[in-house]
């Protein structure tokens, strides 16, 4: 997939996150159970997973800056955090054998890490004033469950897109082969 498309996909999922947040708003007092959709972050993790660590870092940092500018507060917090986590995703993907379960655990771990750092950062800056346990039970658990499901949906979408790209590439190759054969036989 081209960078342009990948960026568009991440942007689209960041928008979807925003819409989901509007539909299922967070409880600011953390008295009720709530969750936060992080499809955009999972998306950039999945993209960074297939790239080199530097590309992963730069791509994730760009997505993080977009997140900061359009969807969140605290510029350039997400830019730096996403950049580091994107580089981690890319680095960790090379350490073992390729499997969906491994990919899931890496993304899940990075998601937990991102949420913990965000919680620490917002607690430090005074944006949220809630105990860790309350935050974890009333918000983080729901977030992890929702995003676990979202991961598999995203993985499926990426798989479909990948297969579509492969089919398209093969079709182009076949067309080129035919073209060369015709060129060789007829000279036109």
């Amino acid at each position, binding site marked *: 997939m081209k960078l342009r498309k990948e960026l568009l996909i991440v942007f689209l999922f960041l*928008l979807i996150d925003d819409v989901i947040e509007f539909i299922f708003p967070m409880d600011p007092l953390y008295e009720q159970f709530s969750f936060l959709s992080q499809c955009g972050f999972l998306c950039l993790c999945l993209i960074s997973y297939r790239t080199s660590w530097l590309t992963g870092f730069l791509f994730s940092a*760009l997505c993080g800056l977009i997140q*900061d*500018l359009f969807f969140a507060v605290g510029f*350039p917090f997400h830019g730096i955090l996403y950049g580091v986590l994107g580089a981690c995703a890319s680095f960790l993907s090379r350490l073992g054998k390729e499997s969906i379960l491994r990919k899931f655990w890496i993304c899940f771990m990075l998601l937990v890490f991102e949420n913990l750092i965000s919680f620490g950062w917002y607690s430090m800056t005074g944006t949220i004033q809630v105990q860790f346990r309350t935050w974890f039970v009333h918000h983080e658990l729901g977030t992890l469950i929702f995003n676990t499901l979202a991961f598999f949906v995203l993985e499926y979408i990426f798989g479909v897109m990948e297969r579509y790209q492969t089919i398209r590439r093969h079709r182009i190759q076949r067309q080129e082969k035919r073209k060369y054969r015709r060129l060789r036989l007829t000279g036109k």
Partner: protein
Amino acid sequence: MKKFTRLQRILLVANIVLLVFGCLMMGLRQNTLSNIGYSAWTYIKYGLIDYPVTSVTNMFSDFANLWHAYDDNQYLNEQLAQQRSYKTLYEEQRNRNQELEELIELNGTLDEATTISASVLARDTDAWDQTVTISAGSTQGVEENMIVCTSQGAVGLVESVQTATSTVRLLTSDTLINDIAISIALDDGTNVEGVLESYDPDAHAYRISLFDNDASVTQGQEVSTSGRGGNYPSGIYVGSILDVETNDSALISTIYVSPVSNIGSFNYVLVIGSGTIS
């Protein structure tokens, strides 16, 4: 040595541009004197992200409201249907109440007569104008041949008595168990007597034979029981004269009397035994 690939260079430039842009916006935000740039950015952000997102969420919210509107509509329809039921129920209860009040009034006019209040338990739809079952029997003192009245007047005779219920043969029945002696008060202060023999379904009236063929009775005159020969008192309203039939000698042979108006539908009755009406 080439340090960055083309893709990485593009990403790096994009990162730097966004970082500088972000810093610029941050700087403008801090500077309270010139917030034009920041306002412009806020406007762009609103136009690009917030407004579309709000529109999409509003769409969901509108859809949800539409769903609620459907629920509300269902609820209101049910309420309306219930209201209609309440209205009919109210009207029925009001009619029953009126019927009971009139029966009490009638009861008040009976001095020595035996009166037993009862309600209609069953009325067969196949024999609507033949018999009814009432909620009073021998325990309450009901006896055969007692007259049964609604608030309007006489409607039947007790045909058979059970312990707690009785069967009433209506005056509109094909086979009356007994003839009913009647009396018509004339304008000159005298009475003319006769007997209610049967009901004519074609004329929708009782067929009554008068004992005095020379009597001058006219349409609209009221007919009541005479109290002779039956287990009921005199003076109970039976109906009003509808038509008078004369024979060849211009003598009255038969008169037709219309039944009481509510004989087709009544809920409460008064079973009246021998005695007189004051």
